[in-house]
């Protein structure tokens, strides 16, 4: 019998891998494999017209953070790169906080509607989520550009004499990212709030807690997994954002994504671009690991 069942196991295992083969082949060919090649490229020397010379070099990794002053031949931190990294982290954190500020009440509002209404409200969140990111970015650009709707309106009512320059600033990138990534925050928040047991909230009030105390001591701890999931879902794409800062930030307000693109375009320094990509990936992986640990350490709720 043992032979028979192990033969059946082997057959099942063979069938399983056969079924997985097409998906794994495409993912290795067009996702995981190219990442490995990028890692290798970051240790090569740049070619003259883009591409690489197959000569090992640590220069790209050195250049990620450091630069040599060609006049004085001294070493220093690469201010340009560090300021772009700093801007990316700062704007991504601000985006996450603002999305949480707007997304938490919105998810709570939807979760406390009667059951029949909830699907409709959620549909209103999901539609922008599945709408092309470029279109949404473009829609908000039209709103705030110099000759856009907002300025036209403000000029018309006489609140301002000349159009306000809102586009191509850090503020406009932040506005664009909050607008674009807000649904990513609401979705997981709603998922955890939908399951919220309101008898616990009631118990809180029965024990003379104020609304704020109930929110802070009862609701917040219970929906913490949703808060963490939403924050990571917003933070990770914000950090690697490319389209929104390119369209709304112009040439002066680069983020890491735009810096990477620059190395493959005008910069013609593919190894540096590859090293910057791997750095971005490493930061994201650290954030994801922190998320897994935070989610894993969630103490099961005790009544």
């Amino acid at each position, binding site marked *: 019998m043992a032979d028979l069942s192990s033969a059946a196991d082997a057959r099942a*295992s063979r069938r*399983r*891998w056969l*079924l*997985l083969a*097409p*998906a*794994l082949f*495409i*993912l*290795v*060919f*067009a*996702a*995981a494999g*190219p*990442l490995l090649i990028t890692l290798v490229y970051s240790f090569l020397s740049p070619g003259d017209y883009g591409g690489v010379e197959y000569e090992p070099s640590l220069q790209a990794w050195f250049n990620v953070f450091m630069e040599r002053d060609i006049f004085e031949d001294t070493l220093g931190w690469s201010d340009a790169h560090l300021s772009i990294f700093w801007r990316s982290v700062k704007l991504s954190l601000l985006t996450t906080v603002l999305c949480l500020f707007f*997304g938490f*009440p919105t998810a709570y*509002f939807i979760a*406390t509607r009667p059951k029949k209404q909830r*699907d409709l409200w959620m*549909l*209103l969140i*999901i*539609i*922008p989520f*599945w*709408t*092309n*990111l*470029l*279109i949404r970015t*473009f*829609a*908000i*650009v*039209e*709103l705030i550009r110099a*000759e856009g*709707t907002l300025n*036209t309106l403000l000029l018309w009512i006489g609140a301002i004499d000349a159009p306000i320059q809102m586009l191509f600033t850090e503020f406009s990138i932040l506005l664009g990212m909050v*607008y674009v990534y*807000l*649904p990513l925050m609401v979705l997981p928040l709603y998922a955890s709030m939908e399951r919220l047991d309101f008898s616990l*909230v009631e118990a809180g*009030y029965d024990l003379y807690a104020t609304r704020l105390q109930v929110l802070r001591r009862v609701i917040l701890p219970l929906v913490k997994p949703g808060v963490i999931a939403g924050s990571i879902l917003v933070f*990770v*794409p914000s*950090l*690697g954002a*490319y*389209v929104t800062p390119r*369209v709304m930030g112009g040439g002066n307000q680069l983020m890491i994504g735009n810096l990477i693109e620059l190395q493959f375009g005008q910069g013609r320094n593919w190894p540096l671009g*590859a090293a910057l*990509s*791997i750095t*971005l*990936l490493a930061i*994201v992986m650290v954030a994801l690991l922190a998320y897994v640990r935070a989610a894993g350490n969630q103490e099961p709720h005790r009544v």
Partner: protein
Amino acid sequence: MSKGFNISRQTGFTTIAMICFVLLYMPIILLVIYSFNAGTSIAIWEGFSWRWYQSAWENDRVQEATIRSLVIALWASGISTTCAVLAALATTRTRKFKGQAMVFAMINQPLMVPEIVTAVALLIFFAMIKVATGYTGLAYLIIAHSAFCIPFAYLPIRARLQGMDLSLEQAAADLYATPFQVFRRVTLPQLWPGILAGAMLAFVISLDDVVITEFVKSAGQDTLPTYMLGQLRRVVTPEINAISTVLLGISVIFVIAFTVLGKIKN
């Protein structure tokens, strides 16, 4: 406590939620409205007109980009959905197997790695192949799109498989149906809404992609989104609004169809 006390209410939450919905939709609605503007302005209303839809329709580059987008999205959704169905069959209703964690990590990889990193990696890799083979056709875009569409197709299909009643399949197997017959006659008809939902999701995701397409495409291979991105650097006319509105309409139709499919019970 007063009689009207509602335990689920939190002060100010409804206000912020309403602000959220208004802010979420106001820019999109303005974009749609001004796509029908007779004038060239995107802020001053000069009367209703279809002219920008007509000019987009008659623009050769827009036509080519539209056809290219549709071709890529059809291929990518077809390939990724097929792969996702097979992979979902392999990863549901089986015991834990060796390499399972690796398989899930692989399938979800496109969701976890920032898009710009994937785009750059594909640029490097496909540049090597382009030099080696001389081929610069659409296949690169189709394969790249298929890869990042796989997780989106996989999730609804797997969810459907996991929610399925196993007794019908077991009954068929007891009646000496071969595994393929069981799949063809019992599993597939029940799985159909999930497959359709996965395929639609993959189609919309492919149609909307900007970043990966921008890096992988060869010269003259603009899709609608990369064409629009290129136009944004120049003078913007409401023609872009018209194209956006059409794409928006497609997304809305797909989202609603997707939601309806999700509600079909086994």
